[in-house]
């Protein structure tokens, strides 16, 4: 009786399946619950990885509920890579579609923020540009300038107050969440990622910057109410701009489709 890895795997995450035949104890008897050690190891280790990765979700729904949800998730979306630090990228979508949690509409977006923090933590290092580098750019060249963001920068947009919810569940004496939509940028000055609340238009601006749009076009993308100064100050203060790339005027029309004749 040969136990292939297909057979061993089939019963591993399905307790309703019988223990494969051909697995024994030391005396030639059926392995029985000895096989459950592997079932348990897989489910527990993946649940723990999700608990470490989504501590705010765990707090929001409670540890027991989280174990239950994680148990369902890991069976439909087991890891596809041995890099457990990145496990759970499909968890936000799973939460969004998970029927019993539909009344907590913000969960999925808070999970996206936690995922962004984790990805930022492991992203490549970058040094910020010198404090005076931007001031050294001639005013007439500023509009065509491209800002290269540090690899650890992440943007999370939401219709929910995700920044407030995250802060309320991670720091003492934080104010209660406001009833508003909030966009967040995760910045990592050094080794510890921090979420920052973005002003109106900030996410659209940063998304455009992330797509290598010249500064002028990115500001346009931010909309009428977008104020560049505080966002630029935040990026500079947290070493989130890795490089400045001047672009010639020839590059500009590509990023300004609305300016057509």
């Amino acid at each position: 009786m040969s136990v292939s890895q297909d057979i061993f795997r089939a019963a591993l995450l399905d307790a309703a399946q019988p223990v494969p035949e051909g697995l024994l104890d030391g005396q030639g008897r059926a392995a029985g619950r000895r096989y459950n050690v592997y079932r348990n190891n897989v489910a527990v280790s993946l649940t723990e990885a999700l608990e470490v990765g989504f501590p705010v979700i765990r707090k929001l729904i409670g540890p027991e509920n989280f174990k239950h949800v994680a148990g369902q998730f890991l069976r439909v979306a087991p890891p596809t890579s041995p890099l457990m630090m990145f496990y759970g990228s499909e968890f936000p979508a799973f939460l969004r579609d998970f029927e019993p949690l539909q009344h907590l509409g913000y969960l999925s977006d808070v999970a996206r923020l936690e995922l962004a923090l984790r990805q930022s933590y492991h992203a490549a290092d970058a040094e910020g540009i010198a404090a005076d580098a931007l001031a050294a750019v001639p005013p007439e060249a500023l509009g065509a300038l491209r800002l290269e963001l540090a690899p650890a920068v992440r943007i999370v947009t939401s219709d929910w107050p995700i920044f407030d919810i995250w802060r309320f569940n991670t720091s003492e004496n934080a104010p209660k969440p406001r009833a508003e939509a909030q966009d967040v940028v995760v910045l990592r000055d050094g080794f510890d990622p921090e979420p920052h609340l973005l002003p109106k238009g900030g996410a659209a601006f940063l998304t455009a910057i992330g797509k290598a749009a010249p500064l002028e076009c990115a500001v346009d993308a931010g909309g009428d109410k977008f104020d560049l100064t505080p966002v630029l100050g935040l990026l500079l203060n947290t070493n989130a701009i890795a490089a400045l790339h001047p672009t010639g005027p020839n590059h500009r029309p590509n990023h300004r489709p609305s300016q057509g004749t």
Partner: protein
Amino acid sequence: MFDTQPRFPELPALPGVGYKPQHFAAIMADPDPVGWLEIHAENYMGAGGRPIAQLRHLSERFPISVHGVGLSIGGEGALDPDHLARLKHLINWLQPTVFSEHLAWSTHGAEFLNDLLPLPYTNATLTRVADHIDQLQEVIGRQMMLENPSSYLAFAESTWAEPDFLSEITKRTGCGLLLDVNNVFVSATNLGFEPRAYIDAYPLDKVGEIHLGGHDEDEDDHGAPLLIDSHGKPVVDPVWALLDHTLARSGPRPILIEWDTDVPDWPILAAEATRAATALAKVAA
């Protein structure tokens, strides 16, 4: 084969510990009696950030043993080329003193199951494992060490005893072995064999590193003890005794304390390492 050589060409026959980030400051301040560190390869495959920075720092001061937990050397499928490339990258920049992996499988199709799953000891498994080790050693350009597993069950189809199986793999591939003495004790208890006889049959001349760790206790369907390798407790006395038995035959070896869950404060881990240093002193004298 490489432009650069490891800063530390050999693991010293001293205690080492599995590195945990929460111990960074304590280790840098006073590592005694720890002489080297082990890391899990997969935890250092991100692009950057604190993990990589800490590892760079540690590698300047300590010999590093890189221990893979995700290659699935015993898998029925091919080794994951992406993961091989990641291992090669890590080994190239870090230049660790040694690299080891497990006699186990963990990948099935596109899935990674995050556990060390067991293998039947057959000729087919032997050929497959040896082929995968050949491939790995070719990719990383150096010898690896293969670790004996903790067993909770046996396969009816097995035709090899585990020490003979491992011995044959070393002959076919030229790989070294990592001997986990706690795993021997766990498997011996679970499957009812004599742990000292296992050690006596093990090719100790191929052993470049020893592992010790704690285990949990459970029972099987018949009320027989079922030990579970958990790395969450101190090493038990019978395992220390089995270490003495091993060292008396092998001579001094690098000994790692593995403590991966419910990780204690540094002094408790350092005390376990001190106990390993005492065991080593007995055979050095």
